[in-house]
Every structure is written in structure tokens, then in C-alpha cells.
């Protein structure tokens, strides 16, 4: 059985579902052109060209990319919640990186969990230890359970306020569930750090909607 075919079909469905085109579908289209999706599982993750479009996660916020290991909160840097990156934001808006559902929205508006149609789940956590602000400086633009489209504003935050209050405004973006549906019994559903590739060099900058993370195929890690 080829999972590639199933995933490709899903990607095509997602790309051509007739909804208003996301503002980075342009990027995705460009990627589709050059390479057959079959090449993506061949275990050579170095080049962006080897990844199928549904394995890209775009940046939900603009700023400077920080390796997860350098995020100053062990809950994130240890990878216990999932793999991903930090972004030191230069803006104050968090946007949906894909069409999906708001699976979780913290009452304080500082963290949001999104689920894509293929099951991939993403946690976006704004700032370090900002749960202690109890919502001050955060404004959620969506509700839990809402369907969102690529580019929709999810959270607005006051970066200056966070900094003034002594909080590190690093936005942590974690893949908490990989795209494949996996048996419930498997531990955590977490990706290893070998399974994702950052689209930028450490300290590189991204704009909202720029490619941020690429996921390797699980087959490739054997």
C-alpha cells in the first residue's frame, strides 16, 4: 500500500476544495509543479523540493526563527509537547497557517490549537509563561470550535506590553500530532526532531505565510 498516493490525493483535495484561495497557495502551487510527490519519501530531506505540499507548515506569525532547543521554557524546548520552532515576533498578529478547526483556545487567549483536515495538529503558544498574564495583552479573534481559513487572524497580542511586563514574547509553534492518523495506542503521536526540517536557517526571518516547517515522511526515518 502506498501512503504517498493517499496523501497526495488528500493534498489535492485540500488544494482544490473550491474555497477562497489562501494567500500562500501560490507557494504551494509552485512546489507542486517541479517534482513528483513520490520523491518526497526517499529519505533526502535536505531540499525543500523533496517535500509534498501537505507536509509544509507556514509561519503563523512574522519574526526571527529560533530553534526549539533555544526556547527558554523547558516545557517546549524538551519536545515533550511536540516538535517545532520558536519565532521572536516582529508583529502582533497570529494568523491561521492552514484551513482547519480551532481545537483548543485557552481562555486567556495566549494559546491556540489548530487541527487540519488530515489530522495534523498545531499548538501556537504566544510568549513564555504568559499564562500568568491571565489574558492581559491578548485578544482572541476566533472561538473554540470555529473553522478557519489560511490567513485568518487568530490572536492579536500586545508585544510591547508583554515585554514591559517582563515576558519573553517568543511564539512557540509545535506540531502536536503528525498528519497521518495513527492508532490511539501509539505513544504521544509526537514527531521526533528527525522528522521535521525548518525552512529557514536559525535566526532567519519569516513573514506570515512563509514556509516554516517541512515534515519528513515517517517511512524515511527507518
Amino acid at each position, binding site marked *: 500500500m502506498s501512503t504517498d498516493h493517499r496523501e497526495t490525493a488528500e493534498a489535492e483535495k485540500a488544494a482544490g476544495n473550491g474555497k477562497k484561495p489562501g494567500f500562500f497557495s501560490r507557494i504551494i502551487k509552485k512546489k507542486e509543479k517541479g517534482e513528483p510527490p513520490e520523491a518526497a519519501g526517499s529519505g533526502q530531506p535536505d531540499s525543500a523540493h523533496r517535500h509534498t505540499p501537505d507536509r509544509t507548515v507556514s509561519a503563523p506569525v512574522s519574526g526571527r526563527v529560533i530553534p526549539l532547543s533555544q526556547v527558554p*521554557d523547558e*516545557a*517546549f524546548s524538551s519536545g*515533550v*509537547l*511536540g516538535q517545532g520552532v520558536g519565532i521572536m515576533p516582529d508583529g502582533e498578529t497570529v494568523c491561521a497557517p492552514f484551513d482547519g478547526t480551532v*481545537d*483548543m*483556545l*485557552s*481562555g486567556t487567549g495566549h*494559546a491556540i*490549537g489548530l*487541527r487540519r483536515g488530515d489530522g495534523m*495538529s498545531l*499548538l501556537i*503558544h504566544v510568549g513564555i509563561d504568559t*499564562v*500568568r498574564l491571565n489574558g492581559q495583552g491578548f485578544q482572541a479573534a476566533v472561538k*473554540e470550535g470555529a473553522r478557519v481559513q489560511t490567513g485568518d487572524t487568530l490572536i492579536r497580542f500586545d508585544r510591547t506590553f508583554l515585554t514591559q511586563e517582563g515576558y519573553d514574547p517568543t511564539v512557540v509553534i509545535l506540531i*502536536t500530532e503528525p498528519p497521518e492518523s495513527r492508532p*490511539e*495506542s501509539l*505513544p*504521544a503521536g509526537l514527531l521526533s526532531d528527525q522528522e521535521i526540517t525548518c525552512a529557514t536557517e536559525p535566526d532567519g526571518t519569516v513573514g506570515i505565510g512563509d514556509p516554516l516547517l517541512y515534515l519528513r515522511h515517517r517511512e524515511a526515518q527507518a
Partner: protein
Amino acid sequence: MKEFKYVIRDEVGIHARPAGLLVKEAQRFSSAVQIHRGDRTADGKKLFALMALGVKCGDEVTVQCQGEDEDEAARALQVFFRDKL
């Protein structure tokens, strides 16, 4: 089925960090783990479900474990709550 009740003492409740650790602990066991708060219930093995429960300091939660290793799971989770929450 094994269950226990616990009143949260952590001042910010079950936010990302403890939720992640709790999920990891719950996933060590084959038993189903459910966390109840008021009339809401979350799968203790799912991060978003647990975070969405919005458990705060002073809230009482009921933890239910059901399955082959429910005794062990309930014991381990009880220790987890006492130490971390």
C-alpha cells in the same frame, strides 16, 4: 474502573506545560484516562482536549482510568497530580 478526585493547587491550573506532562504520563498506560471538570470531560491522552478543559486553581477534577492497567494508571496519575498540580 478506578477514579480519584483532586483539587488543583497549581496557581495557573492545567496549562500547556502540565497538560503536556500529564498527557505523556497518561499515555504510558493502555487504560483509557478521562478527566472530568464539572460537566465537561476530556481525554487525558489528548493535549488539546485537556487544555481546552480550562482547569484552574481551586477546581476539582475527577480522574477515571479504565482498562487492564487501571490500578497502576490511577496510582501513577494520583502521584502526578499531587506532585505537579
